[in-house]
């Protein structure tokens, strides 16, 4: 693995109600190119807030986030330009219901990257074939199952050729039998060397695919390690307690 730091987080804090609620309470992290960082933790631990802070869907109260060396918390930095490089996959898919699958995928590349329509559609079709949905290009999101929607959401993000993909509990809204097909796509991506930050409750995925697992609680990083060590030899009582409940 190379040492190319893609995302650097320094002292990230997110407070609500003037500090009465501390969703994030001082987080430092470095994410290198090609890493798959899996964030686990009990609900309310701030893991989703942290992930959403990485592309400023949440505005931190304090701290800095550097993407490719640029501090995106600085108001003078072009945030939209940086967001283009960070794909995001949501728990509830958030496909655009008024557009076809192909329309969903090609909208941003055509409008933002100024890609010719033909080229964008060809790229989208190739990606659709890769996730086994080549025959649904003309369908509307309302006609698809949850698992299919989430696979589309992943390839929609890929159409922008992002440097990193952020996953916010991508399988939590799915019926159990559809979780596998989405995780398979994510594993495939990890194998291809995509940098990923994944918030999930899928411990199997964390153990198998993660290059690093981060355990968060009360808005802080309590423990982080390679998955093997973290799952078999947890140090902090909080993590031991958490693993005892979920494994």
């Amino acid at each position, binding site marked *: 693995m190379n040492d190319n730091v893609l995302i650097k987080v320094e002292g990230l804090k997110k407070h609500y109600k003037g500090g009465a609620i501390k969703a994030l309470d001082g987080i430092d992290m470095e994410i290198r190119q090609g890493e798959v960082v899996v964030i686990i933790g009990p609900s309310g631990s701030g893991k989703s807030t942290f992930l959403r802070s990485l592309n400023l869907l949440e505005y931190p109260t304090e701290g800095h986030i550097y993407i490719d060396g640029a501090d995106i918390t600085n*108001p003078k930095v072009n945030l939209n330009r940086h967001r283009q490089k960070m794909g995001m996959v*949501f728990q*509830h898919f*958030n496909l*655009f219901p008024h557009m076809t699958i192909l329309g969903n995928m090609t*909208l941003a590349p055509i409008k933002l990257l100024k890609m010719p329509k033909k080229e964008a559609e060809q790229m989208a079709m190739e990606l659709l074939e890769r996730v086994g949905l080549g025959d649904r290009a003309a369908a509307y999101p*309302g006609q698809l199952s949850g698992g299919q929607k989430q696979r589309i959401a992943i390839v929609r993000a890929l159409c922008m050729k992002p440097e990193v993909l952020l996953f916010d509990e991508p399988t939590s809204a799915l019926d159990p039998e559809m979780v596998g097909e989405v995780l398979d796509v994510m594993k495939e991506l990890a194998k291809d060397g995509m940098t990923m930050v994944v918030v999930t409750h899928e411990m199997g995925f964390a153990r198998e695919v993660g290059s690093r697992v981060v355990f968060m609680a009360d808005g802080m990083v309590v423990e982080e390690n390679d998955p093997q060590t973290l799952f078999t030899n947890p140090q902090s009582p909080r993590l031991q307690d958490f693993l005892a409940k979920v494994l």
Partner: protein
Amino acid sequence: MGAWFEGFKANAGAWFEDFKATFQLNFIDDDRYMYLVNGLKNTLIITVFAALLGIALGIIVASVRTTFDKNEESMRMRNKGLYIVMKIANTVCKVYLTVIRGTPVVVQLMIMYFIIMASSTNSVLIAVLAFGINSGAYVAEIFRGGIMSIDNGQFEAGRSLGFSYFRTMYHIVVPQVIKNVLPALLNECIALLKETSVAGYVSIQDLTKGGDIIRGRTYSAFMPLIMVALIYLIVVVVLTWLVGKVERRLKVSER
């Protein structure tokens, strides 16, 4: 049977003769139908231009209100100057909504006619302004409701792809909003059309006033008033049919 039918025929004949005479008196004599024709013309002019003004105002006000609500935090964090400007604009919009929706349209029309535009003699223009400004408040709330009803995830998906707030609105949110607000917007246009019937308060000869003038001349209330009601009804039915057609066409793109 035969006698009954003869009686009916005589009665119906008399009734029909009576009807013809009243019709002649109210609409044909002295070309009185022209009161209705010119009145309808004024009513339609006022409605169409007031609706256009109302939609324009409504879009502006709804844009300011939702842009402020959706971006309050990011503006405060990233652009203090813009935040202050938008906060002032938002407050102005709120005052406009409160005043317009809190006072009767007739009073607003009279204020426009006798105070604000007292020096103007173009009464149709005055009516367009008064009804347009009034309608704008309701249209603004229709659009705002439409925008707020779109799941926040749609905004987040657009922003996370790298679209600015306005391009997210343009490409992703507004196309969904238009479909949702069309029925409410039609409702507002129908309400507006009927509200213009109070234009006679400031001596504008709209359709209602036209019928009223005929009644004053002929001393017969039934024929002119029913005719006025009928004309309003026909316009509304045609309008509803048209929008239904547009709605069906929009629905085709859904699935």
